[in-house]
């Protein structure tokens, strides 16, 4: 005989009881480990998805400007593919003669690729990619479009624009913005095919993608040989960045250094070494035109000679404006190359007027007028310097202002340099400082940069003016001498102001310099100086400044695949009560075992076993059970985690794709789950044995397992329990209000659960005190009521056991009530201005930006034109125009980034940013959960906090409370790090938190800050629309019709909010499902307690039967005992939960759905009673006599 054998004998002999304990441990382990495995699965699935969607791509350079495709070859990457990457919409064009309507799908990805893109690793499916005129689409898009092979689709994508669209000279009409490209569908690839789900921002939703042969897309967009993205494999971002700097050319930067030879080359489009009439007409100065021979041919030499005589080089940009960082680099490069530099800003004035006479549509140059030749001077005779409020006019003999006296007031009318939805005309006052002859440096049309559609036209009547200008006004005014001036001098400036003044009125976020003119200081040739300058300039241009940054997409996405939320932790939190319930069940079951083995324990003590040895023996048994149960639990955990994943997949709003969310199992989670579950199970078992320590061996031998109350008088124990109850109640009361003071989300959650927990303890302690009370009411009377009273009294016979049962149920009820209280929905008041919608009943997003103000004339015209073009229904158009009168729109700029809403399973690393229009800041509205508002103004309208400035340079932002707290791990007053347009780190400080808002997907900053930090972002992509409720559908249809090709999609804001709330509610539902499991365990626990009680009292019950009690009476007696415990548990749980969530409810953040809640609790009660009844039925069928004999 040995201890090991005794242990084995014990374990095997008591297999029923031990099996139950083992099962309890297995359930606890399964729940705990399963929760961790859910986290593993989500992380694993996101990681798998990342790998699948990124394919071979490690880094991606996605640029705002098009660069040479050849740039990809010199980067030293193991693999590189130049691609064009665009967002847009696709339309399935019905076959000719068909009456079907075109079907359109927005938010699609258009990728221009060649063979370098497609996967070609061994073992991967080789795709037969069409190379001629067809496109490949993935099945997801084919399904959405309803398109089949051979059908034609139209793609609507944004054209790139050299000149920023939001500048005075930008083109914002639909024809200039949208490219409509038609292609036959040559291949539909399954979504599982390599590359089919390519996405630089991996997402569980399958992207809808069109793969267009690169060359076709380049031609369609007019970007031959150019791409806007380079994908690479291998190398580090730093190495790629270094190689990129070496290989970027001025052409990639969109820059050109014009020397005489390059000026000729620019004109000589056919490259034949001379200029034909079509090449030079309207594009060369008069002096060059005059050199044309009889065949109207201008020689190369004539051009080179002319520009050599001019004696300066010019640095210009395809974007019209040189970026400030480029100007800075150019000035430094010029100094290094010993070149004198003159930054110049040339713009257009609508009129130059002295009050009586005016010159329309004139080029005005802002420069340093005092520069020496060849860069100047531009000063009238006798004037040594020009003040900022002075203007010099060109001595054009036919000028309407030729007689305006020097010193007169000259008014310059011009359009504001930036057009934010509408163009605004402004004026500037000058004093006429004098005139300079229209000769020499002043007779230079090349001061103005090239602007296709204007500078290449021979007459104003041929101009293709940008959106800001009124064609009719131009035609009306540019006649006679003005037309003649253009024919003779083209873009030669008619007026000159200082550079400082010019920058003041025409400078914009896109730049304040149109060229840097450079003159060699040492008599070098212009060509030699230009070569030197180009080298020096490239040396100084930092790729990051131009937005050329290799993004480590794989690294970033893999980091993000850790998940927006730690689902392991989340499910562990959700499973807290379930785990507690399982452990309590383990404790109850083990204790039941001990009760049944009391005499055995007593015998061991009687035969000289030390208590410690008996304790160790029993604990070892428990530990073995916990270990075996834990191992079984690990197997169950895998199944349980799959069940949870199915629940998650099913409950996730809109559902998750079956291929996503695959089960993953990591050894670390299994190990953590096993060790944690084992440890807590052993502790629970040890705790269950604690009370046995105090029971005398003699009592144990007699089958008693509760200590005689000899040490402490009952009254003192009761008093102690009462103090505990009072103490915890006081703690809860003190703790609850802290929730209002704490801003941290975790802290608030802790406060909530802490308060609830304290209240629960207090209530249970009070119950304990009551059960220990000797002053319980006497049982009297007869019938069901008397039996019920006896049942209640019986419930207090074993206070600890009853307390455990009630505690278990209380915990489950607490869970259910608290969760129901937090379920949220867009309420009836959602459309009020002070609600989450801000009073805007529609929300819209657009893939291609809208540049017009949709409230203004231009914007409304755009909508009308769009509807007219597509519907051809004058009546519908008229009705629409009428409806639009009552519609107002707030439009937001958008900096693309990760969706920060709870719909994104990834961890958002660089959140989407929205620029809030100042009109919304002034208007106010929306519901705020919290803010840093201090002044009455800020408190009245927390949007004004966006205008705050912080000494440390932090930028104020507002975010939706849940987005900030849970997805971005930030909080009110805390900073979130992002980067600006140049990739420089930037701190965003959360100044207010919105509640239940439609703004979940990003952070909001003021429009002013947005433009300052992201000057390259243009147009508006996010819209809040307010319409009369009856017109909402019509407006939605009209906008989607008019702007649909831009991927403009309108959603009712309530539906949008509910999509977000659905995620929260999904979490709550998951929590409830787990709570339901907890409840099941709770009711099983109840059955265990009931069986234990019946087993102990089998003699008593048999006696009652012998005395003539019917089965029904006995059942009622026991059911009332258990029903009381059930009601007590549910009551304590529900009431404490209600008290704990009271602050949230009073704060208006939730509403109690009473019918559902009461229904659920009633269901709990019913299930509990049914389980009890089932246990009783089995017990009461036992024969009468043996039980009586035993007694």
């Amino acid at each position: 005989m040995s201890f090991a054998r005794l242990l084995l004998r014990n374990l095997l002999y008591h297999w029923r009881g031990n099996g139950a304990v083992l099962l309890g441990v297995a359930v606890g382990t399964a729940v705990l480990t399963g929760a961790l495995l859910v986290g593993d699965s989500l992380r694993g699935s996101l990681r798998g998805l990342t790998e699948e969607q990124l394919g071979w791509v490690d880094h991606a350079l996605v640029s705002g400007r098009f660069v040479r495709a050849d740039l990809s070859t010199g980067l030293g990457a193991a693999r590189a593919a130049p691609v064009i990457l665009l967002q847009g919409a696709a339309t399935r064009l019905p076959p000719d003669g068909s009456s079907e309507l075109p079907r359109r799908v927005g938010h699609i990805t258009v990728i221009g690729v060649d063979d370098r893109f497609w996967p070609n690793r061994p073992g991967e499916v080789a795709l037969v990619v069409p190379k001629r005129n067809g496109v490949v689409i993935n099945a997801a898009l084919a399904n959405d479009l309803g398109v089949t092979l051979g059908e034609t689709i139209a793609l609507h994508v944004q054209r790139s624009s050299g000149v920023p669209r939001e500048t005075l000279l930008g083109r914002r009409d639909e024809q200039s913005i949208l490219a409509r490209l038609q292609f036959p569908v040559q291949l539909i690839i399954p979504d599982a095919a390599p590359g089919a789900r390519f996405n630089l921002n991996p997402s569980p939703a399958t992207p809808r993608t069109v793969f267009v042969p690169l060359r076709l897309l380049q031609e369609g967009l007019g970007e031959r040989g150019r791409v806007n993205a380079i994908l690479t494999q291998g190398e580090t971002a730093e190495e790629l960045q270094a190689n990129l700097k070496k290989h970027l050319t001025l052409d990639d930067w969109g820059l050109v250094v014009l020397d005489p030879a390059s000026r000729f080359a620019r004109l000589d489009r056919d490259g034949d070494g001379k200029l034909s009439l079509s090449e030079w007409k309207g594009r060369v100065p008069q002096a060059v035109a005059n050199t044309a021979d009889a065949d109207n041919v201008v020689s190369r030499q004539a051009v080179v000679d002319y520009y050599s005589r001019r004696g300066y080089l010019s640095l210009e940009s395809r974007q019209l404006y040189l970026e400030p960082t480029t100007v800075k680099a150019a000035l430094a490069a010029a100094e290094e190359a010993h070149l004198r530099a003159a930054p110049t800003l040339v713009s257009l004035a609508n009129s130059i007027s002295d009050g009586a006479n005016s010159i329309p549509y004139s080029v005005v140059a802002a420069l340093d007028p005092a520069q020496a030749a060849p860069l100047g001077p531009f000063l009238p005779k006798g004037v040594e310097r020009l003040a900022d409020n002075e203007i010099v006019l060109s001595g054009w003999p036919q000028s309407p202002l030729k007689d305006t006296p020097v010193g007169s007031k000259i008014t310059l009318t011009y359009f504001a340099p930036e057009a934010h939805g509408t163009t605004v005309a402004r004026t500037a006052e000058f004093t006429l400082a004098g005139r300079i002859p229209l000769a020499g440096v002043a007779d230079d049309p090349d001061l103005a940069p090239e602007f296709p559609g204007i500078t290449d036209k021979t007459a104003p009547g041929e101009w293709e003016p940008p959106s800001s200008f009124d064609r009719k006004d131009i035609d009306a005014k540019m006649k006679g001498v003005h037309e003649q001036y253009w024919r003779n001098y083209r873009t030669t400036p008619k007026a000159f102001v200082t550079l400082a003044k010019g920058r003041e009125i025409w400078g914009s976020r896109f730049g304040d310099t149109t060229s840097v003119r450079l003159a060699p200081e040492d008599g070098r040739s212009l060509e030699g100086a230009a070569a030197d300058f180009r080298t020096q300039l490239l040396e100084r241009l930092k790729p990051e400044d131009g937005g050329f940054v290799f993004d480590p997409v794989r690294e970033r996405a893999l980091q993000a695949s850790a998940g927006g939320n730690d689902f392991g932790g989340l499910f562990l939190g959700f499973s807290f009560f379930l785990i507690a319930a399982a452990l309590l069940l383990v404790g109850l079951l083990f204790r039941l075992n001990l009760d049944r083995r009391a005499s055995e324990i007593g015998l061991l003590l009687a035969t000289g076993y030390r208590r410690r040895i008996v304790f160790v023996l029993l604990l070892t048994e428990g530990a073995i059970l916990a270990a075996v149960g834990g191992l079984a639990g690990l197997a169950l955990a895998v199944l349980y985690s799959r069940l949870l994943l199915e629940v998650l997949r099913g409950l996730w709003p809109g559902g998750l794709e079956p291929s996503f969310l695959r089960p993953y199992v990591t050894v670390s989670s299994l190990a953590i789950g096993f060790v944690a579950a084992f440890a807590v199970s052993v502790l629970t078992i040890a705790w269950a044995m604690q009370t046995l320590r105090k029971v005398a061996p003699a009592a144990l031998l007699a089958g008693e397992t509760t200590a005689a109350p000899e040490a402490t008088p009952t009254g003192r124990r009761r008093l102690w329990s009462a103090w505990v109850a009072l103490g915890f109640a006081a703690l809860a009361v003190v703790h609850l209000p802290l929730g209002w003071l704490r801003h941290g989300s975790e802290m608030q959650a802790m406060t909530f659960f802490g308060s609830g927990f304290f209240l629960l303890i207090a209530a249970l302690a009070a119950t304990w005190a009551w059960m220990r009370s000797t002053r319980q009411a006497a049982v009297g009377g007869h019938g069901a009521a008397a039996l019920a009273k006896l049942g209640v009294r019986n419930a207090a016979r074993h206070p600890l056991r009853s307390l455990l049962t009630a505690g278990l149920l209380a915990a489950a009820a607490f869970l259910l009530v608290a969760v129901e209280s937090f379920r949220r929905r867009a309420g009836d008041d959602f459309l009020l201005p002070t609600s989450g919608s801000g009073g805007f009943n529609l929300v819209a997003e657009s893939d291609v930006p809208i540049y017009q103000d949709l409230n203004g004339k231009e914007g409304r015209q755009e909508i009308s034109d769009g509807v007219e073009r597509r519907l051809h229904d004058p009546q519908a158009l008229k009705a629409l125009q009428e409806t639009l009168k009552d519609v107002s729109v707030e439009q937001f700029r958008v900096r693309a980034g990760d969706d920060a809403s709870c719909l994104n399973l990834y961890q958002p690393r660089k959140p989407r940013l929205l620029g809030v229009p100042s009109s919304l800041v002034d208007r106010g509205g929306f519901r705020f959960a919290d803010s840093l508002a201090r002044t009455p103004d800020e408190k009245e309208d927390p949007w004004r906090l966006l205008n705050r400035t912080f000494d440390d340079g932090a930028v104020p932002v507002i975010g939706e409370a849940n987005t900030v707290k849970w997805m971005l791990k930030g909080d009110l007053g805390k900073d979130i790090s992002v980067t600006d347009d140049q990739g420089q780190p930037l701190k965003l400080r959360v100044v207010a938190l919105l509640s239940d808002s439609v703004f979940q997907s990003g952070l909001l900053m003021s429009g002013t800050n947005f433009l300052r930090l992201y000057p390259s972002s243009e147009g508006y992509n996010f819209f809040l629309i307010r319409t009369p409720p009856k017109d909402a559908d019509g407006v939605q249809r009209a906008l989607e019709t008019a702007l649909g090709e831009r991927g403009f999609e309108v959603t009712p804001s309530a539906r949008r909010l509910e999509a977000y709330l659905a995620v929260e509610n999904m979490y709550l539902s998951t929590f409830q499902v787990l709570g339901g499991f907890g409840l099941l365990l709770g009711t099983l626990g109840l059955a265990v307690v009931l069986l234990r009680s019946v087993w102990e009292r089998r003699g008593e019950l048999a006696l009652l039967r012998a005395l003539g009690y019917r089965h029904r009476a006995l059942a009622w007696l026991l059911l009332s005992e258990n029903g009381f415990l059930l009601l007590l548990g549910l009551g304590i749980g529900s009431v404490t939960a209600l008290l704990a969530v009271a602050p949230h409810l009073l704060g208006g953040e939730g509403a109690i759905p009473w019918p559902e809640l009461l229904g659920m609790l009633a269901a709990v009660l019913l299930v509990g009673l049914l389980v009890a009844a089932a246990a009783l039925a089995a017990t009461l069928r036992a024969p009468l006599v043996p039980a009586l004999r035993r007694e």
Partner: protein
Amino acid sequence: MSLRVEHLSKDYPTRSGPLPVLRDLNLALDRGEALAVMGPSGSGKSTLLHILGTLDRPTSGRIDLDGKDPFALSEPELADFRNRHIGFVFQDHYLLPQCSVLENVLIPTLVSREDRGQAEAWARQLLERVGLAQRLDHRPAELSGGERQRVAVARALIHHPALVLADEPTGNLDRRTAQSVGQMLLDLHREQNTILVVVTHSAELARQFPRQMEMGDGTLQPPDGGALTEIQAPPGEGVRRP
């Protein structure tokens, strides 16, 4: 080896205050002596036995076993003391159903430093002595009531205890078996030279003992007039009067 009990009292706490069970009880027994204690139910017989066996503590008074006060020992020392010096036989034998006959007898040896081989040899001898040599591997459920009680007697003697305490050892047995078990208990007591204290309702068993006392008013008294009366028979034995 001797047992001295002086001014022993024991109260049980109840909701309405302490309930005295033993009052100023005195007793002296030397090695080789056997005592049968009789008394009505609730008179405190089992309480006395449990206190003598150190399974319960007295409220006051002193017990001296071979010159030692066991209640002065710490819990581990007390357990060791009980293991080495005291053997128990209970009415409900309390055999471990999961262990064989031999294993049940050896249960006390698991926590002693005794040589395992010697212990097992002695257990076999004891079982042979009680007539169960052929049933060593049987489980308690496979034995009759008398056989189970014999196993319990063998278990009580496994450590050559100085003091053997039996609480209604024949309470659950029929008359013939009870007589046989009682006789065996006395025989072994004589063979092992133990102090034997038996608590019983059975006058027949008590009469087999050289010394009898009756429990009344919380103390031990000589039996009234020397005649023994069946005070309360356990179920199944009926009630007899002399």
